[in-house]
């Protein structure tokens, strides 16, 4: 294989990887605040894309994306306040069943609202044929938008959870809800906030990836599976881990295509994933001690 081809495969891998990573990060926020996985995360991604496409008909692109993020964040808050807030001592299992139910509800709701057709935002820079030539390889500017957005989100979250009072409070809430409540933290509001934040980030991801992947009411499930895989691989709760794991998985997929028939892509990547998880059960960047203290 020539160097140029290898680089082109790497670019392809980074494209997939950045999409997986930006979806995976959304999982981490709810996990960081509640210790559960929100299986409706893929639907937040879908909603972000769909609302942005609808708004974009009458608004300029940046406003449409902002509007979609706002609207989806509101849906996230609504979902939490309506279905999760009133649970007395929610168990992990119950929360999982509820979020799976919510994902079905949101998906079918989107089908009613938008119908079954596939749509997308215009490319943020250039159009469907534009590509930047970097040396011998060509890359769509939208891939750079996705990578840039992912990097920004990771930077923001690392700062938020590591260096702000609110972030610490959310982590305290995840570590031990009762203890956090005893310390006077508004536990319920913090959980609501985590849903708002993850919905907003999911929506931003959905809007930014839609020119590449297209979006439709059903896209959430597929993205969520890959995103969830990446979140686990990177270590649940760790956003930098998600970014690295996402890019790693994407590049692995792409390189596997170069050597084997495409049909084996998932076999190759899942084998590697399992091997990594056997060696490091808490993910590439997860802490073994921390994960032992969690329910899930």
């Amino acid at each position, binding site marked *: *294989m020539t160097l140029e*081809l290898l680089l*082109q*495969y790497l*670019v*392809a*891998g980074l*494209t*997939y990887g950045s*999409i997986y990573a930006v979806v995976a990060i959304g999982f981490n926020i709810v996990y960081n605040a509640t210790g559960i996985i929100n299986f409706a995360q893929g639907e937040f991604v879908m909603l972000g894309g769909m609302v942005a496409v609808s708004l974009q008909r009458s608004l300029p692109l940046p406003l449409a994306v902002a509007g979609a993020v706002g609207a989806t964040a509101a849906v996230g808050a609504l979902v939490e306040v309506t279905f999760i807030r009133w649970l007395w001592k929610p168990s992990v299992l119950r929360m999982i069943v509820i979020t799976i139910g919510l994902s079905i509800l949101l998906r079918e709701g989107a*089908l009613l609202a938008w*119908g*079954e*057709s*596939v749509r*997308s935002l215009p490319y943020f820079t250039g*159009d*469907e*044929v*534009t*590509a930047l*030539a970097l040396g011998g390889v*060509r*890359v*769509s500017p939208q891939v750079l938008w996705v990578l840039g957005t992912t990097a920004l989100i990771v930077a923001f979250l690392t700062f938020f959870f590591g260096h702000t009072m609110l972030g610490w409070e959310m982590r305290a809430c995840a570590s031990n809800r009762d203890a956090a409540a005893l310390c006077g933290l508004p536990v319920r509001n913090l959980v609501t906030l985590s849903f708002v934040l993850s919905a907003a980030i999911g929506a931003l991801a959905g809007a930014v*990836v839609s020119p*590449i*992947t*297209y979006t*439709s*009411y*059903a896209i959430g499930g*597929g*993205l969520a599976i890959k995103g969830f895989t990446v979140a686990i691989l990177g270590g649940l709760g760790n956003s930098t881990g998600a970014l690295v794991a996402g890019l790693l998985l994407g590049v692995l*997929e*792409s390189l596997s*295509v*170069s050597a084997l*028939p*495409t*049909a084996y892509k*998932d076999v190759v990547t899942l084998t590697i994933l399992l091997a990594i998880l056997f060696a490091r059960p808490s993910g590439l960047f997860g802490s073994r001690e921390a994960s032992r203290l969690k329910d899930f």
Partner: protein
Amino acid sequence: MRAIRILAAAVAFASAASLAAAPAAASAAAKEPIKVGAILAVTGPASFLGAPEARTLEMLVEELNAKGGVGGRPIELIVKDTGASPEKAISFAKQLIEEDKVFAIIGPSTSGETMAIKTIAEEGKTILLSASAAEVIVNPVAPHVFKVAPKDSLAAEVIFRQMKKMGITRIGFLSSNTGFGKAGKEQVEKLAPAFGIQVAVSEVYDKGATDLTAEVTKLKAASVQAILNWSTEPAQSIVLKNVRQMGLALPVFQSHGFANIQYVKAAGPAAEGVIFPASRIVVADQLPASHPQKAVVDAYKKAYEARYKEDVSTFGGHAWDALMILVKAVELAGPDRAKVRSAIENLKGFVGTAGVFSFSPTDHNGLDIDAFELLTVKNGRFVPLGP
């Protein structure tokens, strides 16, 4: 013993009741609706096919019933949405045949689903008019199974003729892991040698694929002269984008699955110049007035576009053909399933949206290679490729 006696009494009562009801039923039959089932992928990854099919059927049934139905009997349409899942198609087919006792079934939308229910329809002696493409649906022939979409072997042949004309001898082939993709792959790999064309790389991708840059890179590495993609999913548009983003100036061919203007819109400028076979419905307004299909495709296009505010596609056209062929056969043979079946089998020169159908006991598709016209995309519109 007691159980048997009760059973016997029940049977006796039931047969007496049905005897008494028989004359009444005969006169009510004139008004009783003809039940037509439709198994379509209205939602899910093949909704590009199923949704316009369902809309077309709804519109046609309403029109027909407003005119007094068929032979004085209204049509009752029962649409089942499979979301393109063959498992759902199987349970819907059983339900329509055994519980609803439908007169005939239109669909399924995809080849995989049709193959899943081919024997169910045959064993239930229920006429099946499939809207999907694979040749295996009607080869070997099952007496009750017909299909109105042109065969994929014809599509492959039309494409290869054009490639030969352009001097292309080495191609890269992509297909999706669906019934349509698999059947197309089989035909393409079988027919290519006869046209002196070598399929240098053949890759199968997931129907939900969101980016195909790696696959396209592989085709680039094999230095092919043209790319042929065979699928019905949005991946068709993704391939086009990825090829152009990579700066490949190769001709790109698509299957007849591309004949929905939505794919062109989704691919934007990347769709310019793509070559694919399609039935004439998508270029209805560019047909000469003398063309035998002109009146039929024009009328359907106008009615559909006025009602649903979206462009017609070949797929909605398949639903039109399936229902109108059934209606024609019922008008010819009366509402008797066995007679209607043989009426379809002997139908000649029926002008539909996909072409002029002439069925026979050995040909349950009824279309020949003239059903296809090679189209290309110019300024975001379908236009005939021309010589």
